């Protein structure tokens, strides 16, 4: 019964690169509908962890359970189909394509028409494409204010916008679980404000579970309901933001920039 309300569970997950231990028996439980932040210094294994969740890396031991169903053996695209969707630390957009096409790709698995239908492009396939476009206009592009640039080629966009397109692509399949890998890294102040706004909006309006990785403590402290801290591939602390703030171990890692600024 516990399992039911836990949206995502990670049980003693371990991952090695050659001799290096990237993850060491990590345990995590993420409740439904919250913003869960994972923090820690560089190389603590945060990104490795989410790469395991989305199956880009195959963990050497441990298992991952999503909605009470084990997803450890699945292939990356299958994970995506379960409703887990993610953004990338250094944006992995398809630079040659337009914003719209990139975002359409997010909904890839929601489209039914196969190659033949596509070739004929009559009736079903055509309608589907049109519906898709109207859907994206209504739900995603407006929401993230991308409508004016939807026909621009991604490569020509500034960094901040690209980050937003990345987010839009992650949102377009209407996932239930959203992984954000350093969404505000390298953004200026107001871009960061926007992003924070969006994150909170996504949480409240769309009611998604959000799994956040971020260095920017301001953002983390403002948006998270629960925080886990990692160091050298191990989880060293977990709890409410206030609790984590006070945790001496965490302070030791983060000595220097204390959380007062947040």
């Amino acid at each position, binding site marked *: 019964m516990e399992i039911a309300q836990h949206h995502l569970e990670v049980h003693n997950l371990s991952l090695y690169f050659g001799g290096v231990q990237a993850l060491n028996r990590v345990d995590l439980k993420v409740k439904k509908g919250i913003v869960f932040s994972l923090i820690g210094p560089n190389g603590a294994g945060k*990104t490795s962890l989410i*790469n395991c969740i989305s199956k*880009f890396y195959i963990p050497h031991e441990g298992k991952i359970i999503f909605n009470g169903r084990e997803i450890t053996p699945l292939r990356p695209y299958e994970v995506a189909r379960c409703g887990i969707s993610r953004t*990338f*630390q*250094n944006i*992995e957009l398809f630079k040659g394509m337009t914003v719209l096409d990139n975002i359409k790709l997010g909904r890839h698995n929601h489209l039914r028409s196969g190659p033949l239908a596509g070739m004929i492009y009559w009736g079903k396939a055509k309608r589907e494409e049109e519906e898709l476009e109207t859907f994206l206009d209504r739900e995603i592009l407006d929401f993230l204010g991308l409508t004016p640039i939807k026909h621009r080629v991604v490569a020509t966009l500034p960094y901040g916008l690209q980050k937003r397109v990345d987010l839009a692509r992650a949102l377009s399949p209407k996932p239930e679980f959203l992984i954000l890998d350093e969404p505000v890294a390298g953004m200026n102040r107001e871009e960061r404000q926007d992003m924070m706004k969006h994150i909170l909006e996504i949480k409240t309006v769309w009611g998604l579970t959000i799994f956040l990785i971020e260095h920017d403590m301001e953002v983390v402290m403002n948006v998270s309901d629960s925080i886990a801290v990692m160091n050298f591939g191990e989880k060293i602390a977990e709890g409410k933001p206030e609790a984590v703030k006070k945790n001496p171990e965490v302070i030791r890692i983060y000595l220097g920039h204390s959380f007062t600024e947040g």
Partner: protein
Amino acid sequence: MELLVQVMIAGITIGSIYSLIAIGVVLIFKSSGVINFAQGSMAMIGAFIAYSFVTQLGVPIVFSLLITFLIAAAIGIVIERFVLRYLTGASLLSIIIVTLGITFIMDGGALAVWGSSNFTFPKLFPAFSLELGGIKVPSVYLWSFITAMVLLVIFLLFFKYSKMGLAMRASADNQKVAIALGISSRKVLSLTWIIASIVATGGGILLASISALHVNLSYIGLIVFPVIIIGGLDSIAGATVGGLIVGVLEAISGVYIAPHLGGAFQQVAAYLLLLIILMVKPYGLFGAKTIERL
């Protein structure tokens, strides 16, 4: 049994020539990440140049070989400097096809200059031949085998110890960083292409003096691909071993398998092996696996 021995020897002798050509391809890939389809044509052109110097201009063999190597080096530089340098950062696909284009240019050039009939390549080596298990192995084969082995050792040492060799490996590994470290990647690349084209020429000359000299000699450029795949794209030792393996494989399939399957099975045997190896070891037997990152 005796037949088998003979087959092996036959395979190794021709295989050593495959190795020679393959080493060139591997060299270029190691230091510039370019896969050179033009290696075969390079060999062919080199052989033709040597031929014209020796027979048409009557230059003594040693000198004409030296001149040929110089010219080959020049061709190598030209290709690197005026074609591939413009393609740094282009997709591997385009680079491969550019080298294909170069092949056409070279073959066409050879065709225009020398025409497309068979020529007799002058005898480079004393006509003595060694009796090995019932096969008279002409000195040419021994020479090619020796050359291949010597080259192998040289390059292995070169890449391990010499400053330039390290520089090559570095710039192959990560050009930006290499440049940042003050390695002139241009110099490295030019050098590689020089070495590669000289090696190719050597192979071409040996090949031409084994069989007749003809434009189609550039066909060897296709045979070496199973070799380098089996050996692994970035391993010189692999290329050498691969050459011998393919040589022996062809010989064996020519004698033992072809009679049952019919046709020129010898031809496809190498490619069949290539497919199988790619299935089980996608990066060849000696090749280094590249790790993808996000």
